[in-house]
């Protein structure tokens, strides 16, 4: 039995090594003294400094964050409404076909989603006789579109779990339907809404393939900037940037984890009382 356990540990270690090897390499080379991303020649912080003065990258970072915030908020608003509506629909065929349509952006290869939206924008651009339609607006539309399914599919299960009689009880006690929605249903589905919001935000932050096809020259996001830089030989400043993003995500995840553990402990303590 012990042998099996050691084997398991070894296996886990190997998988983690595989997953983290490239990340380790890039963090290492972000401190490289020379331009190379394959030969180490000493420790320096110059790439982190250079990053601070790289205006195009900082601009791309700003675009990415603005886009991620606006698209995730918009998708959460539209998606939550959609989930509430879909849940209430009486027409079976309409409900199921709407859910099928919702699945399309998740099932379709990203490259197809990207080019299909690009074709639509270009087509409309030709119709209204305008060139250079691709820009921030088209990026926003595309990001909201691929975020929506994730919001809907994380809110719907919460709606199914909510006790129907609760909102009826609230109405019997004098709430208007609208009040009962905001006082009873909304708090109950809040965890689902927040999951959807966080998922949309991170998906939007990291998306390259779809953005690549629907963005214009004036609306670079960080992944697109990284792509155009990896076309040539990459200098370690891209690695420095990625290391910073990695550390940020790591800290955020650890914080979320700690708060979860604390929450569980609290619950246990309350149960004991």
């Amino acid at each position, binding site marked *: 039995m012990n042998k099996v356990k050691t084997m*398991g540990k070894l*296996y*886990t270690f190997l*998988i983690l090594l*595989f*997953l983290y090897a*490239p*990340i380790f*390499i*890039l963090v290492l*080379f972000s401190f490289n003294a020379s331009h190379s*991303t*394959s*030969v180490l020649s000493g420790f320096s912080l110059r790439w982190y400094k250079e990053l601070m003065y790289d205006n195009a990258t900082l601009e791309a970072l700003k675009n990415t964050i603005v886009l991620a915030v606006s698209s995730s908020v918009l998708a959460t608003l*539209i998606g939550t*409404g*959609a989930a*509430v*509506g*879909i849940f*209430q*629909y*009486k027409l079976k065929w309409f409900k199921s076909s*709407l859910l099928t*349509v*919702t699945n*399309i952006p998740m*099932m*379709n*290869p*990203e*490259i*197809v*989603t990207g*080019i*299909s939206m*690009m*074709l*639509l924008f*270009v*087509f409309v651009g030709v119709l209204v006789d305008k060139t250079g339609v691709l820009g921030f607006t088209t990026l926003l539309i595309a990001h*909201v579109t691929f975020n*929506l399914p994730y919001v809907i599919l994380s809110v719907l299960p919460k709606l199914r779990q909510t006790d129907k009689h609760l909102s009826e009880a609230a109405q019997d006690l004098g709430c208007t*339907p609208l009040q009962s929605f905001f006082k009873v249903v909304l708090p109950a589905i809040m965890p689902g809404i927040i999951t959807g919001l966080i998922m949309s935000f991170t998906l939007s932050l*990291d998306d*390259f*393939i779809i953005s690549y096809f629907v963005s214009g020259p004036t609306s670079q996001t*960080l*992944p697109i900037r*990284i*792509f155009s830089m*990896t076309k040539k030989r*990459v200098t370690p400043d*891209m*690695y420095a940037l*990625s290391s910073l993003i*990695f550390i940020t*995500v790591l800290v955020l*995840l650890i914080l979320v*984890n700690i708060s979860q553990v604390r929450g569980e402990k609290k619950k246990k303590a309350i149960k004991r009382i």
Partner: protein
Amino acid sequence: MEKQKTFAAKLVSAPYVFWAALFIITPLFMVVYYAFTDSLGAFSLKNILAISDYAGTILLSVWLGLIATVICLVIAYPIAFIIATSSAPVQRTLVMLTMLPMWMNFLIRTYSWMSILEDTGFINMFLTKVLGIGPLHLINTRAAVVLGMVYNFLPYMILPLYSVMTKMDYSLVEAAQDLGGNKLIVFKSVVLPLSIPGIVSGITMVFVPSVSTFYISQKLGGTSATLIGDVIEMQFQTANNYHLGASLSFILMILIFISLAIMHKFSDDDGEVLI
């Protein structure tokens, strides 16, 4: 009262219905429209017929995608099981460690593999200096492309497998053992069938992005592996032949939907056999 409720439901979901019609359905029609017209907008089968020139590319994409998916499944199954059967704090940490790389831009992670696989890269440095074996040519091969796919999409296989395994009823496993099944039989007749939903969604989540990738093949495969994603990307970004690009995307889309349909049919059949 009931009527009021339905009206409210229609009202709150109306923005989404419009959005879906405009930005999910219409773009798909756009792909079909561009695939079946020429640059003047007249109906034409020229681009659809041109697909036959790319049959080799399409087959290669499917082949490499399949290999990557199978490798992911084989690697991910044991690790998902190990995670699912460890203690709660260890589980949480391991899941976090599995998800963490997904938050780092995949372009930069793929690029980093170049430093590892290059002729003067890490692996070859280790091989020549420590083991004394001559440098192996690793980069710009099809194997490197498969490695890139496995690396990028492995978490998408581990996570769904892990999630079905945590929900698995382990009393069934014990029951099978009590009834005298050896390890292999217990695995084959209890654990494996119960994890089929996870296997199906894992395969989907690895196969679809692998078949349609273009960045991984460009960076790690060089000219040794031009995939359908590369050809599509080229039509839109450099060659400006939207009509050919659209017809290739149309084929890719149909290919994916057919394989998804086949797979879900298989998983449903298995479910019925179980009952």
